[in-house]
């Protein structure tokens, strides 16, 4: 079973916090990998929040291939950060030759482009990069979006932390939102792309659970938007549905719940908004996931979400203090990081409940 976690803080925090959050839940996962996504970046990235940040792991050839494509499109490098790797013997990790984290300036052709045009360029470029790297298995594009940094690696989370020097709280990388998971052993092949968190255009999703309707989700999503690719894990479907509902359809976040976990006809029929909900239920029938799952998400504007399905067979707890909110699978993780918090304020979401953490760390609870 997966163990997942999300940290949102008023101050910049470090990946070590995510490693510690996951370490105390080690008995619940199989210790087979570590992946994290950082949003609202600090340190040297803080000045470049509007420029796209590329997160990539590749071979030497793959790195060259990617640089050529970026150059060809007209992107220019503004900043590059490479972790100081600690290649000591005995570490359980299968590292890639190169890890690239770089901030790029948009091509001149996009100097006066609208936000939408720039976003279009970013998604097209990431798809092109991904395709090019996939052809000869030369690497992985994890994210290419402003203010987001992603790392996924196979191996022991502790050793991955050591390899990348993440146990030390150095200036880089740091962020106000970090989501993480310590598991690579998915239901499908062990592929770096299959590790949570999944990122698309500023939306991040981690799932503890199953997507019972994976097959039909996948069939429907493949035709919905060009960015819905991969499907290496059934959990990617949650990301694509969140993106579709909130970004493409422009529906408020709470309707995400009505899409992935629609209420029964009989329950809807008693509600004032029954006309809307029944239409959603019918039109997006193929995006229902039918549990059991707990989904943690981050939106492009930095809000943190937690949604629980109708069966509520997956654990989750939300603990907080004045500066930090943590959503994670087991309370042990919160206890380790926020030992002095008021545990009476802890939230154990119920079935069909959505919890939203706003940017000022206020918490909204919404029962479907």
């Amino acid at each position, binding site marked *: *079973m997966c163990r997942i976690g999300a940290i949102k803080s008023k101050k910049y925090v470090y990946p070590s916090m995510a490693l510690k959050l996951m370490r105390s839940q080690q008995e619940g996962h199989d210790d087979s990998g570590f992946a994290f996504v950082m949003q609202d970046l600090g340190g040297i990235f803080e000045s470049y929040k509007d420029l796209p940040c590329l997160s990539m792991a590749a071979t030497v050839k793959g790195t060259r291939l990617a640089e050529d494509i970026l150059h060809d499109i007209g992107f220019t490098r503004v900043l590059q950060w490479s972790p100081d790797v600690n290649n000591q013997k005995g570490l359980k990790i299968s590292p890639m030759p190169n890890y690239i984290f770089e901030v790029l300036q948009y091509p001149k052709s996009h100097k006066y482009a609208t936000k939408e045009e720039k976003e279009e360029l970013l998604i097209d470029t990431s798809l092109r990069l991904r395709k090019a790297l996939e052809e000869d298995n030369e690497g992985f594009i994890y994210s290419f979006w402003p203010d987001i940094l992603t790392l996924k690696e196979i191996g022991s989370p502790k050793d991955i932390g050591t390899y990348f020097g993440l146990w030390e709280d150095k200036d880089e990388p740091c962020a106000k939102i970090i989501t993480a998971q310590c598991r690579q052993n998915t239901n499908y092949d062990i592929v770096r792309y299959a590790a949570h968190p999944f990122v698309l255009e500023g939306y991040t999703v981690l799932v503890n*659970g*199953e997507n*019972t*309707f*994976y*097959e*039909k989700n996948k*069939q*429907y999503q*493949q*035709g*919905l938007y060009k960015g819905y690719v991969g499907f290496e894990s059934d959990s990617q479907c949650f990301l694509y549905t969140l993106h*579709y509902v909130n970004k*493409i*359809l*422009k*529906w*408020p976040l709470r*309707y995400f719940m009505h899409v992935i976990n*629609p209420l*029964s*006809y009989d329950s809807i029929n008693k509600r004032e*908004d029954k*006309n*809307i909900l*029944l*239409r*959603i*239920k*019918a*039109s*997006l*029938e*193929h995006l*229902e996931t*039918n*549990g*059991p799952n707990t989904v943690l998400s981050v939106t492009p504007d930095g809000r943190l979400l937690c949604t629980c399905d*109708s*069966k509520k*067979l997956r654990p989750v707890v939300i603990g907080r203090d004045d500066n930090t909110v943590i959503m994670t699978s087991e309370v042990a993780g919160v206890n380790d990081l926020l030992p002095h918090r008021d545990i009476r304020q802890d939230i154990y979401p119920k079935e069909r409940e959505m919890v939203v953490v706003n940017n000022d760390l206020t918490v909204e609870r919404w029962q479907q």
Partner: protein
Amino acid sequence: MAAVTVNELHIDDLPWIIEYDESKCIQCGKCVAACAFNAIKPAIEQRKKSGSITEKNKFEKVIVIKQNVSFAEHCRGCGMCVRVCPNGAIHVKRNTDDRYSVRYRAAKADSVKKGGRSNLNTEGRTLDKIKVGRISQMTDPSLDAVRHTFELKTPFGRVLSADKLGFEIKNDTIIETKKLPPNNWIYPIIMGDMSIGAVSWRMWEAMAIATAYLNEVMGIPVRMCTGEGGIPSKLLKSKYVKYMILQIASGHFGWNRIIDAMPDMTEDPAGILIKIGQGAKPGDGGMLMANKVAKYIQEIRGVPKADLLSPPTHQGLYSIEESVQKMFLSMNAAFNFKVPVAIKVAASATSVSVYNNLLRDPYNIVGGFFLDGLAAGTGAAHEISLNHTGHPITSKLRDCYLAAVHQGRQGEIPIFAGGGLGQTGSFAADAFKLICLGANGVFSGRLLLEIAGCVGNDTERCNACNTGLCPAGIASQDVCLTKRLDIDKVAQNLVNYFIATDFELRKLMAATGCSALPIGRSDALITVDKNVADRLDIQYVC
């Protein structure tokens, strides 16, 4: 040498032969009275006497039961005589050397007509080669079929993609801005379309009672389709019409009454089904032989007593565009665009084209696609159609669904599949498998007849619905025969069957971890037949 006639119809030409044991017979006459087909008769045989015999009383007369040998009156194997015989003195035996259909054509210069079902069975049942193989274990646990709640409703009506719903956001809430096509949420199993006429009014009434009971008492929102033959005015004007899908076919039978009743209707019907074709006899229109056109049938349909042969096509509708513009629009308009209007077609090599065209209709007014496969039943058909035309439902349903998937439009016109469902006993298993292959729901008519006591089967037993002499009183309008059917008992059996089916459907959903209908969830299915796996795009196992 004895004179032999070889050109006359003989007992050994017939499909069924009566076996009679005179020693057990008490000559009560029940078998003769029970036989709807007049296939047996009392007769006197002259026998040689045993014991002390004089020249004068060498022979004796014995009363026996004999089989009639004629095209009009012969045994259909229904076994009613066996049922009524107190001593087991009579039995029917299948004649494996039957030459009846050759003899009939040679003698009558006419096609053989039958009711019931196809009897060749050359195809085998694909659905029985499919198993539900993705059983939830461990992390994706199976559910409890008894205690868990399951969503067993599906939309009936045109579904628009989310981006075409015309939603707007106000105060962080979605609001509707335009009128959308009607959707009714119904149980995924529909009582198939059999008209008053094809079945007796008692059978039809039993189905209507069962439908109302299932809805009002059991909370199982089953809908019943009327068939092309009208509907009693009282029912039309009652609240129960909301459970009925009114059918219009090429004969438009019964629609005068429906139109007359419209001003007095207090509820909208559940839907309208425009029947273009049916699976048992694709390419043919409806057929109701004159001997079933009783007085009340004449009244409901507004016709004289005659063979009622619906045309094979709707006059004036020669293209999908026309049918959309004329028929669908007028039927939608008739109920003020508040009732879904669906189409029923026979599964055919061309079904995908038809479905695609309907999906792409810019008016979005086709609210359901009923696809009927060749193992379906019929009240009357030419044997040639019944046995030699048609298309199995399973692959065609899958083709249509995948055609929609290819366009990202799955679910926009819900597909309801039928054609011999429940043939091997479990409607729930067939329904579940077809739903996983892409159907929103399923329908069956002939299974309901079997539940009611139909003795026909897929190997030539009875299948005489066309004669109007149904020995079970189901497909007959003969007062004596229909009396055999206990309306309340049939309604009760139908309700019981649906309760059992409802549980069995939940049972399969539970095992696969689905709390909602698994429409298109083909990963739940496996098959040991490689060809079936390849054709349906499901997992091959061995």
